[in-house]
């Protein structure tokens, strides 16, 4: 996924850059002020490691096309959407510069979908389902992944409406969703299993370790 280089009209590129920048600044400030003890630093490393691995896995899906997971579930569950935006931006920049995947002009839009709005929905789900942590992590990861692609579809529809009315935006959004959503749902479920496994192995252990050392 990710909107490819040059595929958003300049005014939309500018719009999404302006949208994303405050989140990145806030997220960077939050990392500086909140991530101070060792456990948090290790958890931050786990979060970005997970995003690096997952967002590079181009997986074939049941629909016969390829796509890849976003890997933002763990980050957003642990640190919230602002910090997730910063971590996603690092990965998106790597992919835009070295892999020609996504792009510099569309970076703002891709950060908005993968780093901010998608994870934000996952974060809300986590807040609601928090009581059972395993289920909460599972649901949050899946929702963050699928919503990322829903947002991408809407971003593309806003830039490429089928007609000049509101209905045209809807029509385009549904067409883009048809491409992304069906491919993405099985991938999102797979990603969620991985996220729960990592969460179980790493995060719980770390948190337990912190308690016993204290």
């Amino acid at each position, binding site marked *: *996924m*990710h*909107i*490819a*280089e*040059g*595929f958003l*009209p*300049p005014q939309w590129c500018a719009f999404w850059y302006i949208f994303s920048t405050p989140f990145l600044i806030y997220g960077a400030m939050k990392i500086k002020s909140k991530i101070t003890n060792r456990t948090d630093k*290790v958890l931050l*490393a*786990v979060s*970005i*490691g*997970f*995003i*690096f*691995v*997952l*967002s*590079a*896995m*181009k997986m*074939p899906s049941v*629909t*016969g*096309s*390829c*796509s890849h997971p976003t890997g933002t579930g763990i980050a957003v569950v642990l640190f919230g959407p602002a910090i997730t935006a910063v971590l996603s931006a690092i*990965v998106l920049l*790597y*992919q*835009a*510069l*070295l*892999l*020609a995947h996504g*792009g*510099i*002009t569309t970076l703002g839009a891709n950060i908005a979908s993968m780093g901010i709005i998608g994870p934000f929905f996952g974060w809300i789900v986590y807040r609601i389902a928090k009581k059972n942590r395993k289920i909460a992590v599972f649901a949050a990861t899946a929702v963050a992944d699928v919503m990322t692609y829903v947002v991408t579809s809407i971003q*593309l529809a806003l830039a*490429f*409406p*089928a007609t000049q009315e509101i209905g045209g935006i809807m029509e*385009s959004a549904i*067409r*883009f969703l048809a*491409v*992304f959503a069906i*491919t*993405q749902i099985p991938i999102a479920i797979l990603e969620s299993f991985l996220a729960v496994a*990592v969460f179980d*192995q*790493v995060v719980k*252990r*770390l948190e337990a*370790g912190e308690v016993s050392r204290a």
Partner: protein
Amino acid sequence: MIFALLSWIGADEIAQEVIKEINPNFEPWFNPIFEPTGELEGFLFSVQVAIGALILGYIIGRLHGRP
């Protein structure tokens, strides 16, 4: 588009086709500064995985090594 869905190509490429169907006049207005060739792309993707896996593996290893 149906054919595209069955050929295991990237969903992002299918989306680009849809863009061209909706607005045939649209041309990408900016090209990637650097575009890796097929093999280099595979390598750089695996470097990305390696960076992430190294971090995760190191941390999991440390945690299990703890008494």
